């Protein structure tokens, strides 16, 4: 079956989730990946949205994190302060999904500004839940499209802590959570080096070359040896994802922008 680079990215992210995970889900790619996992190999995957919906099982992807579908299909819905206190900060989430406008080689993220903070060239949405998702969840999966302006040498602003600006700051702060353990893009899968914490390409998606990855990464990206090739999307994965997207498009009157 043919598939798009976006589909490959979503499927690769979905595969990283296990049936025992409790996921804090953001909008767009993470939501698609988490629900795909739930609808394929991880039926008991627990999805939590920061709007308060706990153990929700949406049949269409939400356009926003507070869609009615999330509440209707949830085990229960709590207030937002309770969500951030008892559920996120309480350490009850095993995986948090994050993205951003920029990521650096140590998994730090910027979703605040391009340019100077006080005189931004582009004002981005801001931190939202990301700052504390990054430190409270057991581990963090980052999902972003590969692009030189997104995979940068130095962030314009450090919104969300990965392993720290030089890869050591997270450990020095004494955080007990693992931080970013996976970066999935439309070209490859990257994982942090166990010692340096630098994100290293461990798997290329089928048909993608090292040169493509280098050209789309602003830092001097390292490739693991042996380098894997990501397994092709299965028919089940593709069909499930497309069904989900089709139901979503029908429900929203248009395809969500980020899936």
């Amino acid at each position, binding site marked *: 079956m043919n598939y798009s680079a976006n589909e490959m990215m979503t499927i690769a992210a979905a595969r990283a989730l296990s049936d025992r995970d409790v996921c804090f889900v953001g*909008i*767009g790619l993470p939501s698609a990946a988490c629900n795909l996992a739930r609808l394929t190999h991880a039926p008991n995957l627990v999805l939590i949205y*920061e*709007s*308060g*919906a706990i153990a929700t099982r949406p049949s269409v992807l*939400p*356009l*926003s*994190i*507070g*869609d*009615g579908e*999330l*509440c209707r299909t949830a085990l229960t*819905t709590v*207030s*937002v*302060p309770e*969500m*951030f*206190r008892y559920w*996120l*900060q309480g350490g009850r989430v095993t995986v948090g999904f994050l993205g951003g406008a920029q990521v650096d080689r140590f998994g730090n993220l910027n979703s*605040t500004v391009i340019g100077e*903070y*006080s005189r*931004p*060239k*582009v*004002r*981005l*949405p*801001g*931190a*939202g*839940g*990301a*700052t*504390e998702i990054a*430190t*409270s969840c057991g581990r963090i999966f980052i999902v972003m499209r590969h692009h030189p302006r997104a995979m940068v040498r130095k962030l314009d*602003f*450090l*919104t*969300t*802590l990965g392993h*720290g600006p030089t890869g050591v*700051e*997270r450990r020095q*702060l004494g*955080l007990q959570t693992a931080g970013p353990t996976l970066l999935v893009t439309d070209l490859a899968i990257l994982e942090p080096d166990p010692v340096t914490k630098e994100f290293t390409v461990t798997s290329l998606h089928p048909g993608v070359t090292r040169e493509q990855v280098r050209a789309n990464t602003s830092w001097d990206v390292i490739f693991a040896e042996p380098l894997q090739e990501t397994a092709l999307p299965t028919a089940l994965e593709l069909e499930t994802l497309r069904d989900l997207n089709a139901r979503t498009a029908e429900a*929203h*009157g*248009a395809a*969500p*922008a*980020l899936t």
Partner: protein
Amino acid sequence: MPSFLPLPAAVEALIRDGDTVALEGFTHLIPFTAAHEIIRQRRRNLTLVRMTPDLVYDQMIGAGCASKLVFSWGGNPGVGSLHRLRDAVENGWPNPLALEEHSHAAMANAYSAGASGMPCAFFRGYLGVGLPDVNPNIRFVSCPFTGETLACVPAHRPDVAVIHAQKADQAGNVLLEGIVGVQKEAVLAARRSLVTVEEIVDSLNPASPNSVILPSWTITAIAPSPGGARPSYAHGYYSRDNSFYVNWDAISRDRASFTEWMNENVHARRTA
């Protein structure tokens, strides 16, 4: 016991130029109709507080109501940027907009602290990131037992909280159901509160003894406003108009089309 007022009279009575105002509603129950009335009454120099300044604040900022924004995520959820917010921050149009920027955890804790009568909120957060360098309202303290570094932000104590809810009863008690966000905390944290409701009923008939209810004496004014959350949604009443959120991207992208839309859809209309 709150005053039952038509929305224009309620906005007139409760919201003054220069106030700190929190319109809350987390995707669900966003008080759009109240926001439009504030815009029509041309309130100015408001400090707008909100976790997720989405379309409702994009409209208020573009209309010139705000001089400052206290927030944690400003975007059109699932769609993209807020063009009016960006135009204010990047270009000062229609007026400069000061930002006090937090994370969601900080904002939620700050509302909860305000509702709790605390001067500040303590939480695990803001470690190793840039916001504390640009926001003097983010500080750190040590746990006196473990020495752990904890973040601390001032409690939110807005002059006015504005929310939309499903029902009020004749005595002025208000029921919220579904995604309840930070609305209860915003009302309890605020000096004054305005609640627009889908309907006023004889009895709330709450589904559960633990239903989310704001008692009458915590509310300053109630204004009936059926459909008052549109294009957001009201659980049990109507769905979210997702297509409007998508269309807003084009409407708001330039000043002329925004101004035209506001003239036609806000200024030219009167609330009952």
